[in-house]
């Protein structure tokens, strides 16, 4: 009898593991395309967490569903169940296993964060840990590679403006060269905004009166969306911009061409809505903060 039980447990554990591994592989398809080197690291981490999570979730729910199905009291059965109050071994095991799991997850997350080296609001103390495993994607993020592009990002209610100081270009569309590490210096004119490109899996709040450094490496040519990720007031949802990742040659060509354009005011959705103020079925006339002046740029889309 005992052997029978043990083999059932082993078979279910194997089945559970296989299903969880499969779900973990599916996790990649729940995410946007991987357009930055950092996104590959993060997706691997996510897939790992989904695998573990699926194992735990399915394990617990299967146990509950099994009990609910097979351990029901009959209609006239008023007896009590077995008065088991605890079991020290079991309790120690299910305390130690989560502790080990937590250390494992934290260690792996730490490595990923370290390899991303995105800088953020303050100098990253770049610790090199012995446990840091070699990653296939480490090359573009090697901290010794100096970023090749320095771009200024300016956020205000409700517009993004990008400045390429070396070429004297301003734009409402963010152009980035592919396969090169870029460095952004981000500033906000009014409230806290958030710089977020889902395809890059990268996000950083922009705190007013500070310059926030941010670094990453785009790797996939295409057009993506940048959104404001920190609630910034009435027209928050309109604060979006295009991100164009292109080959280094196309990128240089674009900069050279745009540099010849005469600056002109960019169209702006928040400003347009503010002057119209007729949208919506229910009108309250509650005042909103007046959008900032439309930026003067060489290029807008």
């Amino acid at each position: 009898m005992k052997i029978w039980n043990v083999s059932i447990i082993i078979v279910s554990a194997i089945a559970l593991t296989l299903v969880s591994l499969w779900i973990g592989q599916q996790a990649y398809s729940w995410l946007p395309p991987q357009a930055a080197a950092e996104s590959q690291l993060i997706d691997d981490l996510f897939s790992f967490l989904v695998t573990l999570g699926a194992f735990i979730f399915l394990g617990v729910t299967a146990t509950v569903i099994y009990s609910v199905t097979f351990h029901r009291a009959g209609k006239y059965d008023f007896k009590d169940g077995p008065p088991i109050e605890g079991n020290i071994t079991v309790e120690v095991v299910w305390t130690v296993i989560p502790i080990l799991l937590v250390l494992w997850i934290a260690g792996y997350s730490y490595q990923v964060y370290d390899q991303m080296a995105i800088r953020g609001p303050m100098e990253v103390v770049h610790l090199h840990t012995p446990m840091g495993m070699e990653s296939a994607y480490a090359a573009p993020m090697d901290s010794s590679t100096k970023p090749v592009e320095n771009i200024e990002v300016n956020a205000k209610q409700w517009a993004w403006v990008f400045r390429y100081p070396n070429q004297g270009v301003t734009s409402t569309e963010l152009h980035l060269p592919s396969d090169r590490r870029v460095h952004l210096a981000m500033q906000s004119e009014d409230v806290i905004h958030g710089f977020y490109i889902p395809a890059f899996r990268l996000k950083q709040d922009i705190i007013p009166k500070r310059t926030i450094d941010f670094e990453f490496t785009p790797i996939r040519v295409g057009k993506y969306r940048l959104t404001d990720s920190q609630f910034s007031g009435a027209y928050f949802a309109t604060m979006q911009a295009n991100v164009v990742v292109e080959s280094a040659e196309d990128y240089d060509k674009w900069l050279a061409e745009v540099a010849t354009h005469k600056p002109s005011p960019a169209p702006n959705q928040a400003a347009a809505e503010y002057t119209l103020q007729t949208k919506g079925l229910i009108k309250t006339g509650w005042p909103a903060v007046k959008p900032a002046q439309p930026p003067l740029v060489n290029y807008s889309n």
Partner: protein
Amino acid sequence: MTNISVKDINITSGANPDHEAGTGWKRYFSFSTDHKVIGIQYIVTAFVLFLVGGIFAMVIRGELITPESDLVDRTVYNAMFTMHGTVMLFGWTFPVLVGFANYLVPLMIGARDMAFPRLNAVAFWMVPVAAILLMASFFVPGGPAQAGWWSYPPVSLQNPSGQLINGQFIWLLAVAVSGVSSIMGAVNFVTTIVKMRAPGMTFFRMPLFVWAVFSAQIIQLFGLPALTAGAVMLLFDLTVGTSFFDPAKGGNAVLFQHFFWFYSHPAVYVIILPVFGIFSEIFPVYARKPLFGYRVVAISSLLIAGVSALVWVHHMYVSGTPGWMRLIFMLTTMFVSVPTGIKVFAWVATIWGGKLRLNTPMLFALGGLILFVFAGITGITLSSVPLDIHVNNTYYVVGHFHYVLYGTVTMGMFAAIYHWFPKMTGRMYNEGWGQLHFWLAFIGTNLNFFPMHPLGLQGMLRRVSSYAPEYEFWNIVASLGGFLLGMSTLPFILNMIASWMHGKPAPENPWRAIGLEWLVSSPPPVENFEEIPVVISEPYGYGKSEPLVAAAGEVHNHK
């Protein structure tokens, strides 16, 4: 009659002059000091506010059913999610749990009332005051607060109406009022639990609900001062032009976030711990087994309360937070899952091999347990810094915390309402309507909140009134689920009203449960116990058929 017991708990011994003997419905509208009346006052008030918050939620889901901003103005949308969050947290979850704690704690520990009955009544009456204040903000020029329930400056300091009395001002007052009320409640609960336990009710004989309330209220004592300080400083910035948080005047906007989350993360445990307590009360009854690992589960509540004070920066990973801080708080946050996991495993082991009866309270508790496991797993993913950088402020987070706040807390509250309904009203509820309510709520919850996870992973932000068309499909599913969830409260309301008026009379102990509250009549008499009981054994003695209290003559042998 012996008087050992009376001496031990003389705070409420003798007749309480404020305890009017009335039993009519009018006492629920009076300044009653009976903890049971106050408990029901809290629960009913909170449920009304739950419906108000629910209406705001319907407006939000109505707007999001299409990608364009076409149902309400953007300002109205912003007010809706701000008020929804505020009302659901400060109007529903906190008060409803305080209501249950008020009703149950004195009964469960064998006391005649709370330690400070009048303070208790004052604390309750501040809740409707705060709620009316909040609702009044719809009528000031500029409308209610629009900066989200966390009110980060500088957005919360921008005042386009130019009026001194504006929505944000009223919002801060209401939060302060509700904070003061909570501090009063916390002092009262901690004192009651420490001082007023019946003879023989040692800490390790207390029901787990009492342990949970105790741990949760300790959090209120250390956390609320931080939130209140932050709110008052913000109020000064907004009204008299100080510059604690206003960067334009040299203030520090991130400082507010520290004040805010230092309380508001632990606050989620103030909410969830009593629900864990409710699960721990319900599973043994309907599985007819003692709670597995009682002592470990009790201590894990205190551990959760302790660790919760050290995790607040996980809400600020992408804010102005240096790398080392991100990593330290990642580790502390992840460690919360250890005591939480212990509880989950203990509940599953309690159910395992039991004699299960799937009445409405048990259904809600089981549903809540499964939804909580899901929420806990997404919580772990959020605590991992690199992944949180991607999903922070997206719908993934919204999905996570609604699985917690609806899936776990609200389901747990319904479990509690059905379970103790016979005790509170002296009537049985209707089982069929209860089960219908459960299934509508369970399906509605998943339809409403599951789609938020794929949306967030794809990058859809929270707090947006319009979104890119590629997100439409999951938003339609979520909105339909939201409307279903709204409908699911109808059978509940009907059941409660009809059963309270015409339900079958309830016996003392319809569930054959072990616990002091089941030894008194349904509903309990004004001062709970004619004679203070003497506790002689552990709670949850199912299958061991031990008596819980000593018979009157035996009292001298114990103690």
